[in-house]
């Protein structure tokens, strides 16, 4: 219920926003075209009608799954977006995995040995991860790894393999090497975030009585960290990461542009350039839907991880 309301409000905002931004006709039409031609194009695109009518028309069609045709490609906007979703999702998921794989161990280590040199280095680096702009780091990565060292490719998806009719990079070695740099670039911010969360969680939880009791039971340090500590810090980490996943998709515009990754982020930037309104609107609607879905999934995950929440839900 609440979710559908969010989507509706967003659709209104998006529609108004896009209408204010600029007149696509200026972009589409040959400057030398005569007035008659201009009028024809305008009425073709439905731009001659009042704005509220355009909106009503838009909502009506949107409910049928039709978000209009791209002015540029002449294809349904939704189809265009959907075609570009897998590349973006692949990138975002890879970045998310990197955030977990690098972020949690580093953060837990820094939390367990807060005064060690290694911990201090980790924390200092994570500040860099927070403060350096993504596009700048991306360009630096390209310069170092692709240009100077020549070890990793810097553009495109590389060889792909079709999975259920969808091309995927991560299944080929070449594809993986293409995926690595952009995924790392996109995840730097999240790695830093996970490091901070895990460190804060670890520092709080090691002082809990139940950790001390686990030691009093004679458990090995490995088990205490991997089970007793980890299970508790996973709750906030997963919640935050889940909520940040939408952000990853949104932020991928920058990374995709820098690394020429053919996902919907790159598509949207191109479309904004060309004032390709239906595509922009379709993109924003899809992203809203994505955020709403993610929030639902996170709620579910949260209750799977935390027995206290799970059992409360069962009771109510």
């Amino acid at each position, binding site marked *: 219920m609440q979710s559908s309301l969010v989507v509706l409000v967003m659709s209104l905002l998006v529609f108004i926003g896009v209408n204010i931004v600029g007149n696509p006709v200026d972009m589409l039409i040959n400057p030398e075209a005569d007035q008659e031609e201009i009028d024809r194009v305008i009425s073709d695109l439905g731009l001659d009608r009042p704005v509220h009518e355009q909106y009503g028309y838009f909502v009506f069609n949107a409910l049928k799954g039709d978000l209009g045709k791209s002015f540029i490609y002449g294809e349904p906007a939704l189809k265009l977006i959907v075609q570009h979703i897998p590349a973006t999702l692949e990138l975002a998921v890879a970045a998310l995995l990197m955030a977990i794989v690098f972020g949690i161990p580093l953060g837990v280590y820094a939390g367990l040995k807060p005064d060690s040199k290694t911990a201090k280095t980790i924390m200092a680096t994570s500040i860099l991860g927070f403060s350096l702009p993504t596009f700048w780091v991306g360009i630096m990565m390209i310069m170092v790894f692709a240009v100077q060292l020549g070890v990793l490719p810097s553009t495109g998806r590389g060889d792909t393999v079709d999975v259920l009719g969808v091309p995927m990079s991560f299944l080929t070695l070449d594809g993986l090497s293409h995926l690595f740099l952009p995924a790392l670039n996109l995840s730097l911010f999240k790695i830093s975030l996970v490091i901070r969360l895990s460190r804060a969680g670890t520092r709080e939880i090691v002082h809990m009585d139940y950790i001390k*009791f686990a030691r009093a039971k004679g458990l090995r340090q490995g088990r205490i960290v991997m089970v007793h500590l980890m299970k508790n810090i996973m709750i906030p980490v997963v919640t935050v990461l889940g909520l940040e996943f939408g952000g990853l998709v949104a932020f991928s515009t920058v990374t995709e542009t820098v690394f020429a990754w053919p996902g919907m982020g790159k598509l949207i930037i191109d479309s904004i350039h060309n004032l390709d309104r239906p595509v922009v609107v379709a993109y924003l609607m899809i992203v809203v839907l994505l955020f709403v879905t993610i929030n639902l999934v996170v709620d579910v995950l949260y209750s799977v991880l*935390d027995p206290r929440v799970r*059992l409360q839900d069962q009771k109510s």
Partner: protein
Amino acid sequence: MSDGVPTLSVRDLRTHFLTKAGAVKAVDGVSFDVAKGRILGLVGESGSGKSVTGFSIIGLVDPPGRVVGGEIRYNGANLLDLDDEAMRDLRGNRVAMIFQDPMMTLNPVLRIDTQMVETVLAHHEVDKATALARARDALGRVGIPSPEERLHAYPHQFSGGMRQRVAIAIALLNEPDLIIADEPTTALDVTIQGQILFEAQKLCRETGTAMIWITHDLAVVAGLADEICVMYAGRIVEKGTVDEVLDRPIHPYTHGLIGSVPSHNSRGRRLTQIPGMTPSLLNLPPGCAFRERCPRADEACLAEPEIAEAAAGREVRCFHPHLEAGA
């Protein structure tokens, strides 16, 4: 009962917290023995160093705390000389501890069976089914109804008293030689408390487990312990058999405590009735730590009293003990 070497023999134990403000001498020169099958009651008001004494024995003093001196002999061997792995294998296996706060001792996100089975597996090479069977038996022993089902529950599904019983069951799992029980019955209602005390006593008598029972509650100690150590400001001020100390306290502090309990049978009394407060353990002034609150204090007490034998089997740390009358 004892066959020579006591199960635990603590000598001149000193555990200090080296804080920025200075050294907090939480435990400062504590000595006592616990023989096989015996129960030692460790009493004293809040902050007197009872818990820190317990944690020192199992080697789990929180930093910046550290055992800075003394000996902790378990069956004759000094635990302070053991390496980390030997100490780990001793904890929860030969020496178990039950913590003060039952609400916080169990991990909220792990099921009871997980938390019990791991305790067995950390010390014994048995299969999971065997470990699980032991867990079930232990839960039954502390009076948890339908243990089989309760094994699958999470801690928050238990009341405080039930959680404490689970913690006690965990301590019993590996049939330790020594159990350090830090106020384990405070959260329990009277019937359950009685049941637990009875079980504890039975366990010690039957299996020869030695026990240190830390408490505020003199009534608990009276019915349970063989010997009593009274702690004040990190030191033992009086030591003796339970009957001697409770019936004829000779240290002014103990004297005040017993006086503040209207009758020996009244239970649940906290030992905080003596006027004044425990002195800060940070930079304790020289002389007797009880001086500010002691009705018998005089110039002699500006020097530090040593613990000394006052009568047969009785030790006291005081210049003017209540030896004259039967109190």
